[in-house]
């Protein structure tokens, strides 16, 4: 099956709606679709909802809260996938303004996950008339949701039985099918998953954009937390939106000239400074590879080490040669930072598409690190092939990388062997073995299915079924709350350990990336400073998710004189840009302090969502020890000088008189105590109890005084949940 037209889809139900332009960044209505009962309905957005939850992730969490019960499981029909945009989303001037926030109850963590994704779907959905899309229910047949934002038409369609699931084929076919003609192709965007997401809780959603130069679709990923698995469990095959007519003020800004001015200012800053700073326009986020390796921060062999002499084999200059150059590779119009690069004419060496030449989206840093050095893979081809298959099968490269590195370590430790893996050789560096896991997963082979369950499950499995040491498994399975850690070595940065594990959804770098501030620049010497950073930065970064923004244009490009400002880490001029941009679109004034307050409300609500579901205790915020310090003797020996020095200077013992086991033990005790003290300081700064619950007083103070929030906090403090 290579081509398909709209006539191939049987209409299950359809509904027309009134078209209205976006005003001041809002539609003031959301779209509810139940794929089980085939209900389609509009919901108004109240002024309270707008004031308290702002948009994007805030709307997503509020809608998900209202739709589910504390006991709802990820695969219950009432679980939802909410895609929400935010008031700033969709403007074409300010770089990084095309993000959608996807929220659902995660099959990995059993708490809400939120994932920030580019592509054209979110902005087109917004211009079609909705601030968010709720998907609830479970269909009894393969279903496609189609929204035509010019016609005011919403359809639930039945997908033909032989329609492929893998994204690089499906999204292309659907784009062709739903565009009116060739000129209309760029007006269509598809959300799809893949065969891997059907069977694995590491499943993701791909959001497409049509690339006119390549004459094909590209995809960006809502990667974290298994939302693609929820999607396929609902028998959702794809979402398709069509909207023609995007213009400079589709967002209905109060002051479009100011939006233009702010956007142009940043465009110019990027064009002048990018080559001197992060080189995003040429290398994307993979520019970090050698920096991380040089600073001993690049995950190597399941985060055992942070560096390897082979690092330069996958350095940024290697990627720059492979990535096609001089293209406007943004994931939404007007993003001149353009980090969404691709490798064209890539010939696959394994799997069902072996021998075919494809366009590979990425690799982004997380992927290059996660399925690269973390698996001890230094072959760029291997990284690209794993990147491609993860994307098209709908598997998160971060979780897959961390899970596979865990399995490779189990292989090295003799816990699993070829008999167990169905013949797959999981020696460090064997990327074809890693690729075989993916292929076996989609073919339903036992080890492939098992490997797709994620690190938390596998660590418990290895203890139960393979007789592995429970403490060792707990130590080296790099996950928090069930979510795999992303790809920075946090061992030597207490602030980054907090940045990863004192998060609402699990260890994902989008909340707080403090590793440079803490380790390289030593800007956070005290607990109080670390706690302040672990308050400010997660709150500040949450705001991107409320607005439909990308984080990268905040600090991956900086004004040339940024270092002259107080607190250059915050990039004060850009913070002011965001306040001005918000005001230019919504007409509402906003200060940098008000910005933090908007985030703080939603951040605390998300914490309470965890609490409502029985989580959100202090104990849920602790890292596996591999994220904190050396687990194995050879890890110690690899950085003996550093650890011995710490024993001598910080702990006050003489390492020369100690065995390595003793040294590992005292380092561990010291570091976990440090982490404990950090948790105290952070909880205090965030206005939480020492068990991590926002106090009702704090909620009232920050204006998150909606009844369900106060009631949940009171119930936890009284011990009722």
């Amino acid at each position: 099956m290579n081509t398909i037209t709209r006539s191939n889809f049987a209409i299950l139900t359809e509904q027309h709606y009134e078209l209205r332009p976006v005003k001041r960044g809002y539609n003031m209505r959301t779209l509810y679709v139940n794929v089980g009962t085939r209900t389609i309905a509009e919901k108004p957005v109240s002024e309270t909802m707008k004031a308290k939850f702002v948009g994007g992730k805030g709307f997503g969490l509020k809608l998900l809260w209202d739709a589910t019960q504390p006991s709802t499981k990820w695969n219950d029909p009432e679980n939802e996938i909410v895609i929400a945009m935010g008031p700033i989303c969709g403007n074409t001037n300010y770089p990084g303004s095309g993000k959608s926030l996807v929220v659902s109850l995660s099959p990995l963590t059993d708490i809400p996950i939120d994932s920030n994704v580019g592509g054209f779907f979110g902005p087109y959905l917004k211009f079609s008339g909705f601030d968010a899309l709720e998907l609830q229910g479970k269909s009894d047949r393969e279903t496609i949701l189609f929204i035509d934002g010019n016609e005011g038409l919403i359809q639930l369609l039945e997908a033909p039985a032989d329609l492929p699931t893998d994204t690089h084929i499906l999204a292309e076919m659907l784009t062709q099918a739903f565009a009116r003609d060739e000129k209309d192709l760029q007006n269509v965007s598809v959300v799809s998953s893949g065969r891997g997401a059907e069977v694995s809780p590491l499943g993701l959603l791909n959001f497409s954009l049509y690339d006119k130069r390549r004459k094909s679709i590209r995809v960006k990923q809502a990667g974290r937390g298994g939302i693609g698995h929820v999607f396929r469990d609902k028998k959702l095959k794809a979402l398709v939106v069509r909207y023609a007519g995007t213009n400079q003020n589709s967002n209905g800004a109060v002051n479009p000239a100011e939006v233009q001015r702010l956007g142009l200012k940043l465009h110019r800053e990027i064009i002048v400074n990018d080559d001197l700073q992060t080189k995003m326009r040429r290398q994307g986020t993979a520019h970090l590879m050698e920096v991380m390796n040089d600073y001993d921060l690049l995950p190597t062999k399941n985060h055992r080490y942070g560096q390897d002499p082979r690092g330069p084999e996958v350095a940024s200059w290697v990627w720059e040669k492979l990535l096609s150059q001089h293209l406007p590779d943004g994931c939404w119009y007007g993003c001149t930072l353009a980090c969404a690069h691709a490798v064209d004419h890539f010939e696959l060496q394994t799997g069902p598409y072996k021998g075919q030449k494809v366009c590979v989206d990425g690799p982004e840093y997380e992927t290059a690190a996660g399925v690269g050095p973390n698996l001890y893979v230094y072959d760029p081809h291997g990284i690209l092939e794993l990147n491609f298959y993860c994307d098209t099968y709908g598997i998160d490269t971060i979780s897959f990388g961390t899970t596979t590195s865990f399995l490779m370590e189990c292989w090295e430790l003799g816990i699993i062997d070829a008999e167990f893996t169905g013949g797959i050789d999981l020696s460090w560096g064997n990327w074809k073995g890693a690729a075989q896991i993916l292929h076996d997963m989609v073919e339903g082979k036992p080890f492939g299915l098992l490997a797709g369950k994620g690190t938390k499950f596998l660590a418990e499995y290895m203890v139960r079924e393979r007789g592995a040491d429970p403490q060792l498994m707990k130590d080296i399975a790099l996950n928090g709350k069930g979510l795999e850690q992303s790809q920075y070595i946090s061992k030597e940065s207490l602030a980054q350990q907090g940045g990863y594990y004192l998060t609402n959804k699990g260890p994902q770098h989008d909340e707080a990336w403090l590793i440079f501030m803490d380790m390289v620049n030593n800007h956070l010497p005290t607990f109080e400073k670390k706690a302040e950073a672990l308050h400010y930065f997660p709150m500040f970064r949450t705001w991107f998710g409320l607005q439909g923004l990308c984080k990268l244009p905040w600090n991956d490009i900086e004004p040339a004189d940024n270092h002259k400002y107080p607190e250059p880490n915050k990039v004060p001029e850009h913070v002011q840009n965001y306040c001005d941009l918000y005001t230019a679109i919504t007409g509402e004034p906003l200060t940098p302090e008000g910005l933090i307050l908007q985030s703080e409300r939603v951040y605390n609500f998300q914490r309470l969502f965890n609490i409502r579901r029985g989580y959100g205790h202090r104990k849920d915020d602790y890292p596996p020890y591999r994220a904190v310090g050396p687990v194995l003797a050879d890890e110690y020996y690899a950085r003996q000088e550093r650890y011995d020095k710490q024993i001598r200077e910080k702990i006050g013992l003489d390492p020369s008189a100690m065995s390595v086991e003793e040294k590992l033990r005292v380092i561990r005790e010291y570091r976990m105590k440090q982490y404990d003290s950090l948790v105290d300081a952070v909880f205090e700064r965030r206005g939480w109890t020492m068990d991590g619950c926002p106090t009702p007083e704090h909620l009232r103070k920050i204006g998150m005084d909606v009844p369900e929030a106060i009631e949940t906090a009171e119930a936890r403090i009284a011990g009722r949940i």
Partner: protein
Amino acid sequence: MIKYLKLDDSKCVGCMDCTAACSLLYFKEENPAKSAIQVQDVGNGKFLLVACDQECRKCVMECPTQAITVAKNGVVMINKNLCVGCLACVAVCPIGAMRFYPGLGYPFKCIACGVCVKECPKDALAIAEKEESPQSHQWAEVIAAVAKDKE
């Protein structure tokens, strides 16, 4: 060959007849801020003329919707229907020849129409032709390099 507006700064006396003609033709008003050709007073009775050279084509490469294309006569044109108003083209233009006006939803530039040439009393302006250059080809080479592989 590339058709373009040839500028001779040494003859310019700053009368602004060219900017008036340009903005009148395209915006129905006399407003130098809405003219595709710019006359910049650099002092001492000298003026700098700025208009698109039609050759560097960085804007053609940067445009996310391919609203900016190269016509058969080599002139760089903007299709307003395809433009989303992002102004990335304004930022990448190395000489400031890609113009915008606050609140106007799309950029504008010289398309070598010649209306200003007729108005110039000092023969500082002329419509001319020049050869293609490596730079002027680059946009097409970039697209050819990423053309989709045949299955």
